[in-house]
């Protein structure tokens, strides 16, 4: 299938690929399933003010899934947890011009940030 320019850009040059060592100020969200063909791991590093100062990802999945998670890491940096959780899949889908069959990739990205924030909050409850 044909991919949009932004998907290709994120796929060719993914931003913020990597992992953080497990720590109290790190929240990890892993969503998806190998059986379905995509697994997204998003990690956020949160400072004392409750602002996400860094984010990294690793994704097993199609180009749109990789692009969605790459874009997400760019967007959440500098945001508070609430602001990050306010990111909607439709914004990601729109930014990347995802075709209808790839909308689930953006849904997965939304799930990933929610899971990462939930993990951070649980650790710091």
């Amino acid at each position, binding site marked *: 299938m044909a991919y949009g320019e932004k998907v290709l850009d994120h796929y060719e040059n993914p931003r913020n690929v990597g992992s953080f060592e497990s720590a109290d100020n790190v929240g990890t969200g892993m969503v*998806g399933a190998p059986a*379905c063909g*995509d697994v*997204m791991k998003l990690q956020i590093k949160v400072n004392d003010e409750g602002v996400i100062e860094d984010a990294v990802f690793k994704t*097993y999945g199609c*180009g749109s*899934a990789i692009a969605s998670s790459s874009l997400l890491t760019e967007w959440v940096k500098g945001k508070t947890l609430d602001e990050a959780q306010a990111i909607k899949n439709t914004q990601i889908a729109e930014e990347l011009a995802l075709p209808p069959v790839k909308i*689930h990739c953006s849904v997965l990205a939304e*799930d990933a940030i929610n899971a990462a924030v939930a993990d951070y909050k649980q650790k710091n409850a």
Partner: protein
Amino acid sequence: MSEQKPHKSKEQPIYLDYSATTPIDPRVVTEMLKYMGPESSFGNPASRSHSFGWAAEAAVEAARKNVADLVGANPKEIVFTSGATESDNLAIKGAAHFNHKRGKHIVTCKTEHKAVLDSCRQLEREGYEVTYLDPMPNGLIDLKVFEEALRDDTTLVSIMHVNNEIGVIQDIEAIGKICRERKIIFHVDAAQSAGKVDINLEELPVDLMSFSAHKIYGPKGIGALYVQRKPRVRLEAQMHGGGHERGMRSGTLATHQIVGMGEAFRIAKEEMVEENARLLKLRNKLYDGVKDMEEVYVNGDIDQRIAGNINISFNYVEGESLLMALSDLAISSGSACTSASLEPSYVLRALGRNDELAHSSIRFTMGRFTTEEEIDRTIELVRKAVGKLRDLSPLWDMYKAGIDIDSIEWAAH
């Protein structure tokens, strides 16, 4: 007139999808052109009253002989159709319908082409019963399991010769012998084997066999069905009309297409041995070039396989992203991540491959115009792409950390 684009321009990807289709051999194109334009023998082969018709009929009969010669058949046993899909439909529905009074049970395999599986599904809707066999993990049919599936009311067995995805070669001689003993009609889809595997229908216990032209450098839109004469296999026609092809397939014969198929089959007979040896070298080179990477699996039996096919799973890398990284190659993936259901290849699933491996499979099929340089480049590109995507893959990290991925409770979505 615009000049024809050469097959290999710098901008075009390397074509490694010969099991999907092949370019028409230039020698075939030359023959076909003799039956198209106003100055040619363009007549209707069924026209008996003038030389245009006679010339076209002679060309069709010469082509019929070439097709028959490649597979050791009598030309009178060859029925031209629009392709292997139509041949499969005619064979399966035609034989099942004609023999419905003897029984309504059919045996086939889960890894068959959709043309066979969907014809069987249609017969199920009409009240027939179908057994879909599981192949062994190497893709081949277990003869014992096969024999146990046969019943007194089984009238038809349909098993493909060579699988389109994994290239494995079924033992159709052994399966045919079992069918003969029980007087069961045996149909073989040979779309992927003609011109690649020796076929001698004079000796093989096969009643019906489907062929395609475009898989072996002939044109698309033409195929044939072998219908054995001694003992005579009878079919109920699926296409009604002028009674062409001895009533089994009505419709004006597409002379130029048929001529193309005949020429393609003639060339295949002449060059098959040499071509297979060359392709085997290329395939082994490709596999040797990637197999030392970790977690690389060949799908399907490596020995009982046609020379031009290699189907490999690169574990922990998703197939569609791999295709994207390999955009300089024209290849196909067993992963179809195009719908929310994300279903991997049904063929690989039938082999018992887990979802990750099914999702990470790539089929490389080589052919007449594949060069050694192209294989060198392919190896280089594949190694780079798999490395890059594994660096991105959380599953690869987990594998490297010794975490069993199956032990994790994944939320299916």
